[in-house]
């Protein structure tokens, strides 16, 4: 039986809200943008008379005509000495590494004429490489990082404090002053603290050691804005090693995640995503994923079984799981489990069925809870198999206690100098005011921040660090794994790598490049096992971006933690309340470092589909309670329906934010994203971190929720008891979920369970669409509704000669592997010069994304059950509309489907959109006159209209292509579209053409895998596969002809070249249905 779940995109649709339903009839919710076009010019106050107007008209017509006659003189300036490996017009790719304390990935940087313009995962090397698919897994923050290189608000040189503000200062002067300050601090016996994020660079560590050799009082404190101290401390207690282990999810048959959003931001997520997805293929052995969490996270959305719990219940849930496993493995139970024994029992059963091939992950930052989780994994024998402590990572070394002590010491006056790199404590510490007071007492404070941000603007000096694309750097993500970052462009401004600054102040004149190389020479020689001379090894490492030494064998160390003590502290740490707040990080913004990146701000959140804001996620029922309403329409958020503003209070700290209903959220919980509200005191923290809001005020995007965090039991806590109240005010929210509905059809997403799938009957889970015809098809002698033919046999259009003729490009999208991360969306932005339009335009549903990731909630009520209970049809439908407490979710990337019988092509009056003989639906901007007929006729709503020239000053705050520096990120092979034309996914035709040309030049056929679209290259989980459908051996053809393959809205017969693969969930219940 195919899944009979009913899908809805938003509550408005679910409850048949009139505005939502009215809205979906229109592709473009507003009739015309004329009011804005006129408002733009402020004609109202003009004093020009009619005659003057005519004179101007005549003059400008004449002037324009004359000007048009003159060909502009274009200068062309070649190199004086052309570097050997650069050919203008041909892209060079360099292997490098992205690391910002939060994410780590080996990447490839695409440069054109010396400018980095695109980033993708390294397909051949690195820990984030998916070896089965030869793809590097990355997330949206990583591929968007190329844009931050060209942020005009980056500091252009060294700065020093002068009075209240900062003024620019010559490098030499700053060096001299800092060296003097350090000497003074060391001379006075005061401590010199280097405060950084987690440093995994051997060279930085060596440079800090050199500084310590010169000034004996140097001390290194590591601080992670999103702390993992609980986990690392627990590992110290359990196994004597304060580290974050390596997890190998490819070996895990069962994954139980206790509030760890491991597919989004938790831990080494670029590894977890591909590892997880590699076990989601229903034809292989599928893993089974349990998720316990409060808010609907990306991991929860992908889980096979999800249980909503309050944050205060996490400890008891872990204890409950622990005891059930302890009882059955002969371990010691601690007692006092939760009342969710049913859910934990199912998880425990699954775990026990997969001993040594399972893993329990826990996102709590509480030490006790993590010790219990270690105990569970130890009892299950997961150490040495799915969890590797011998080859542990070097991520997340931050120590909350050390940071707290530092703030105390600063206030006590025992810190002589503070050097701050990679962290922003004034923004991310809950006790920022205390830090500020302490900083005032530190004689010398130096920031290496690239911006005069919250912390840097208070320091005595700023020595801005290079952007990572301008830098040499080295990393050791794991034991035996090394990575290199090489510069892809010379520094744009007078900045210096902060490691080199440390060297200068220690009296070492070496360049950072030479220093890194020297460190490697020492390090690799000490490690041994180099197969070639160092120079060759080094060159190879620069080329690959990675050097892997021989791995140590994984070991299963004995668990030596005290579970009873752990359970006691875990229980004590849990702060129960009527309302509980959960602080999390989003897929786009993370801990807030990249809040200045407009691509990320405009990327809709995978779950809530909100852009340009943070907000309070609440269960829809809870929202109705605090709004004192029983009408679900009050929850609708749209262009004309702003969100309701609520006030959240945690321990005396108040925060007013819009509330967003989030099905699946645990009742009684509030979820608020961290990382927003950068630059709240007017600091220039980057281009898009602050924008002009609906009141015309220049304000930070979102509000800072870090003040709601607090130290709890020695570690930072990201949940707390809270109170919430409706303020009565409203707030406009740019939310993309209601704009693009699907006409209530149910052939959009298909989902089934692994049992049904394995039974092998395609018609059961992926029935083909049949239409009734007026002829006796089944031969029963009567023409009736049973006479049906497959959709494919109906044609309004003449057949395109596609099969076997040349290429036919196609995409196959596996709903099973898609985890909804959105890396494809930002990759598409970068490759195709897609305009960022800003919150106000997104609110009017004018976002320009060529690729969106739709998400659908599902209801738990099923046809079969209802029928068995003897309900009437109406009753059944009504029941199906009621949201379950824990709806499952499906993500579906949607781009132009490149229909062979495209409805858009037939309605274009000027033939601006046409079909190619390679199966592409082509959009010709210079021919488009902007009637928008095509967009109205597109059943997939993928065509976007340029309402404005987004490269003008009006969009300068958000659109990177506005200024000369920002324009450097544009892909020179793709036209920047002007006002008044439609645009849409071209299936990266520029890459197709380039790939074909390479093949032609080499005189060989195009090989499968030669050409990748930006989205397929960015998809580390392999959900998006691109290829030639006419190539019988291609992967995409295999997928397109497989049993799971279907076309979206197949019944309308437009014959897309994009196909989807039915989602198969590893659940038991439906298997029997």
């Amino acid at each position, binding site marked *: 039986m195919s899944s009979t779940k009913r899908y809805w995109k938003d509550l408005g649709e679910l409850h048949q809200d009139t505005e939502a339903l009215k809205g979906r009839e229109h592709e473009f919710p507003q009739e015309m943008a004329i009011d804005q076009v006129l408002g733009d010019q402020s004609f109202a106050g003009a004093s020009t008379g009619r005659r003057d107007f005519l004179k101007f008209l005549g003059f400008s017509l004449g002037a324009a005509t004359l000007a*048009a*006659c003159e*060909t502009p*003189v*274009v*200068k*062309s*300036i*070649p*190199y*004086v*000495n*052309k570097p050997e490996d650069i*050919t*203008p*017009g*041909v892209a060079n790719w360099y292997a490098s590494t992205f690391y910002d304390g939060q994410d780590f990935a080996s990447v490839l940087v695409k440069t054109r004429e010396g400018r980095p313009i695109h980033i993708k995962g390294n397909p051949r090397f690195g820990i984030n490489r998916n070896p089965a698919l030869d793809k590097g897994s990355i997330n949206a923050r990583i591929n968007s990082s190329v844009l931050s290189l060209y942020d005009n608000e980056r500091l252009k040189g060294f700065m020093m404090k002068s009075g209240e503000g900062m003024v620019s200062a010559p490098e030499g002067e700053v060096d001299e002053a800092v060296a003097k300050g350090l000497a003074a601090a060391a001379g006075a016996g005061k401590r010199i603290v280097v405060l950084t994020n987690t440093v995994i660079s051997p060279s930085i560590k060596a440079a800090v050691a050199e500084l310590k050799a010169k000034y004996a009082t140097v001390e290194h404190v590591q601080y992670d804005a999103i702390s993992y101290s609980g986990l690392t401390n627990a590992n110290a207690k359990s196994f004597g090693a304060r580290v974050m282990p390596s997890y190998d999810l490819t070996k895990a048959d069962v994954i139980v995640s206790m509030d760890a959003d491991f597919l989004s931001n938790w831990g080494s997520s670029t590894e977890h995503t591909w590892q997880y997805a590699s076990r989601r293929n229903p034809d292989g052995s599928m893993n089974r994923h349990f998720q316990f969490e409060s808010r609907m996270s990306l991991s929860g959305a992908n889980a096979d079984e999800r249980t909503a719990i309050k944050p205060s219940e996490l400890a008891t849930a872990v204890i409950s799981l622990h005891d059930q496993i302890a009882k059955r493995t002969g371990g010691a139970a601690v007692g006092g489990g939760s009342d969710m024994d049913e859910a934990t029992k199912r998880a425990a059963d699954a775990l026990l069925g997969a001993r040594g091939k399972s893993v329990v992950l826990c996102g709590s930052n509480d030490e006790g809870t993590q010790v219990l989780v270690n105990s569970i994994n130890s009892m299950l024998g997961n150490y040495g198999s799915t969890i590797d402590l011998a080859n542990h990572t070097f991520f997340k070394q931050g120590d909350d206690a050390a940071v707290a002590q530092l703030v105390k010491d600063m206030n006590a006056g025992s810190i002589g100098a503070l050097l701050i790199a990679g962290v922003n404590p004034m923004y991310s510490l809950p006790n920022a005011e205390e830090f500020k007071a302490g900083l005032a007492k530190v004689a010398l404070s130096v920031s290496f921040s690239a911006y005069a941000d919250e912390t840097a603007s208070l320091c005595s000096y700023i020595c801005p660090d290079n952007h990572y694309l301008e830098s040499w750097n080295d990393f050791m993500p794991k034991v035996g794994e090394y990575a290199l970052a090489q510069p892809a462009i010379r520094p744009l401004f007078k900045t210096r790598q902060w490691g080199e600054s440390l060297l200068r102040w220690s009296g070492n004149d070496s360049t950072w490049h030479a220093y890194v190389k020297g460190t490697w020479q020492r390090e690799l020689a000490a490690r041994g096992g180099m197969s070639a001379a160092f120079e060759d090894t080094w060159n190879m490492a620069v080329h690959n971006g990675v050097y892997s030494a021989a791995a140590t064998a994984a070991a299963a160390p004995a668990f030596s933690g005290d579970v009873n003590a752990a359970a006691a502290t875990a229980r004590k740490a849990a702060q129960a309340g009527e309302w509980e707040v959960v602080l999390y990080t989003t897929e786009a913004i993370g801990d807030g470092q990249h809040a200045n990146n407009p691509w990320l701000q405009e990327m809709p959140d995978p779950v809530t589909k909100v852009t340009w804001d943070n907000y309070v996620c609440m269960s829809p029922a809870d929202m109705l309670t605090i709004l004192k309403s029983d009408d679900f329409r009050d929850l609708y958020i749209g262009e004309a329906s702003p969100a309701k503003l609520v006030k959240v209070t945690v321990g005396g700290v108040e925060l007013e934010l819009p509330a967003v209903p989030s099905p699946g959220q645990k009742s009684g919980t509030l979820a608020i994203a961290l990382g927003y509200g950068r630059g709240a005191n007017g600091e220039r923290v980057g281009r898009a971190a602050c924008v002009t809001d609906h009141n015309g005020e220049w304000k930070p995007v979102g509000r800072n929720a870090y003040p709601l965090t607090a130290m709890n039991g020695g570690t930072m806590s990201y949940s707390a008891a809270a109170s919430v109240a409706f303020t009565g005010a409203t707030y406009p929210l740019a939310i993309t979920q209601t704009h693009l509905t699907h006409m209530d059809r149910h052939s959009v997403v298909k989902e089934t369970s692994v049992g049904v799938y394995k039974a092998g009957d395609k018609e059961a889970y992926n029935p083909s669409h049949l239409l009734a015809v007026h002829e006796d098809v089944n031969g029963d002698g009567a023409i009736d509704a049973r006479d049906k033919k497959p959709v494919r046999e109906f044609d309004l259009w003449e057949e395109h*000669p*596609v*099969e*076997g*003729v*040349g290429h036919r490009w196609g995409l196959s999208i596996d709903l099973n592997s898609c985890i909804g991360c959105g890396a494809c969306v930002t990759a598409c932005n970068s490759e195709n010069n897609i305009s960022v339009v800003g919150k106000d335009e997104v609110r009017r549903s004018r976002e320009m994304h060529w690729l969106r990731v739709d998400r659908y909630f599902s209801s738990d009520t099923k046809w079969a059950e209802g029928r068995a209970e003897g309900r009437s049809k109406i009753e059944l439908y009504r029941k199906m509309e009621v949201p379950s407490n824990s709806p499952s979710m499906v993500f579906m990337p949607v781009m132009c489907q490149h229909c062979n019988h495209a409805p858009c092509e037939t309605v274009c009056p000027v033939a*601006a959109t*046409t079909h*190619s*003989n*390679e199966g*592409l639906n*082509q*959009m*010709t*901007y*210079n*021919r488009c006159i902007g009637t928008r007929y095509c967009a109205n006729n597109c059943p997939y709503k993928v065509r976007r209209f340029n309402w404005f020239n987004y490269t003008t000053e009006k969009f300068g705050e958000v659109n990177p292509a506005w200024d000369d520096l920002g324009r450097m990120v544009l892909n020179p*092979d*793709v*036209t*920047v579209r002007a006002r008044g034309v439609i645009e849409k996914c*071209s299936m990266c*035709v*520029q890459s197709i*053409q380039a790939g*074909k*040309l390479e*093949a*032609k*030049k*080499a*005189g*060989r*056929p*195009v090989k499968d895998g030669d050409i990748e679209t930006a989205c397929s290259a960015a998809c580390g989980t392999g959900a998006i596969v691109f290829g030639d459908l*006419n190539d019988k051996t291609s992967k995409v053809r295999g997928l397109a002809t497989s049993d799971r393959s279907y076309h979206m809205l197949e019944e309308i017969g437009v014959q897309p070249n994009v196909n989807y693969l039915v989602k198969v969930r590893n659940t038991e219940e439906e298997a029997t249905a």
Partner: protein
Amino acid sequence: MSLAARISERFPGLLHASLAVLLVLSFSNAHAQGFDEALYTKGEKLFKGNCGACHKPDKNLTGPALAGSRARWEGQGDIYAWIKNSSAYLKTGNAYANKLFADWKGSVMTAQAVSDEEIDAILYYADNFPGPLQVKDDQTPPAPTPVQGTDAWPWLIVLGLLFLVVTISLSGVKRSLDSAVRDAEGRKPAQDRSILQHIGNWAWNNKIAASFIGLFFVVWLLLQGWNALWTIGIYGGDEVAQNYKPEQPILFNHTLHAGKVEAGNLAINCQYCHSSAEKSKHAGIPSTNICMNCHQAVGEGRTPEGTAEIAKIYRAVGWDPEKLAYTGEEEPIRWVKVHNLPDHAYFNHAQHVAVGKIECQECHGPIDEKMDVAEQWAPLTMGWCIDCHGQREVQMAGNGYYDETMARLHNNEIGHRELKSYLEDGKITVKELGGWECAKCHY
């Protein structure tokens, strides 16, 4: 363009004649006595064959200038032995030879298989350089004069205006004569009517003819205007006489460099300089270091103007022709782009040069025959592009990519049908494989 050059263009004969006269004069002064032309010619031949790569008669290059070398060696040692095998001669410990070796930074001259007589001839040539043979140089074909459109329009307009003035004054004369006659005959003087009034009267009397003529003029004007609009911003092509030929910072002569040897040019392959034409979308303006591959040795043009232009390369690349060393002071050359496509059109040289095997001249015109300064020859309009795509046969032979294309067409029925329709005209054109599709050039 300098005045001299302009004059020389207009009156090439004059320049040649005057040059010849000057040279003959100088020859008769300088070489009046005892010039051995046979020896000089022999020496020149030998010099060009054996020495020219590293030496110049009158200037230092990789090695010293040869003129006066015999005098310099006078009493210092054996110049013959030195020339024949310099390494061996150095070992004899000759002080002057070792000084020379040190002065020239230890560059070793390879041993030369020449006889003493031949050395005499070479040195004679060097000492007497440039010799009388400049006259002969002048006989090599002059740099081709640029194609000038037969621009007769201004003259026609001037003639027309003159004709008009004459007509008007004649009619004035006629009128005054007429009135004088009337006066003499005692008749009433005729109404003094202007030509316009005449025309007006005529038109009033012949309304139908006048309206036809009027209509004709209006339509003609509109058509002219319409056609003129189509040519805005378009250069080159058969229809438009004036090609886009901007003044360049360096008067680089394409014909001289790329033209045929028979015509006295250098016949350098286009892709020697425009090397990325077969690799990239851009043919590429060569970087200055490419110029220096040859011009490090070739510091002089065929004319003093040419030498001045070469000096500009040296300035750009930071080359000191006296010291024969790079100064490190670089100044990129700001060329003016000649072929400008609109931003929304994608063009790739590699596709056309490497895959389509199209000669440069097919789009860029006779650049090697008559373009001293690069100019836009083809109109570069979309119509011009697709005309070619509609006719041009795809170069399939020997290309595995197209073998696969053909194999697929042969594989099924739709393919067969398509292939048959392709081959109706006996060839597979670019258009038939999708060369007229929008997204081949617009994305």
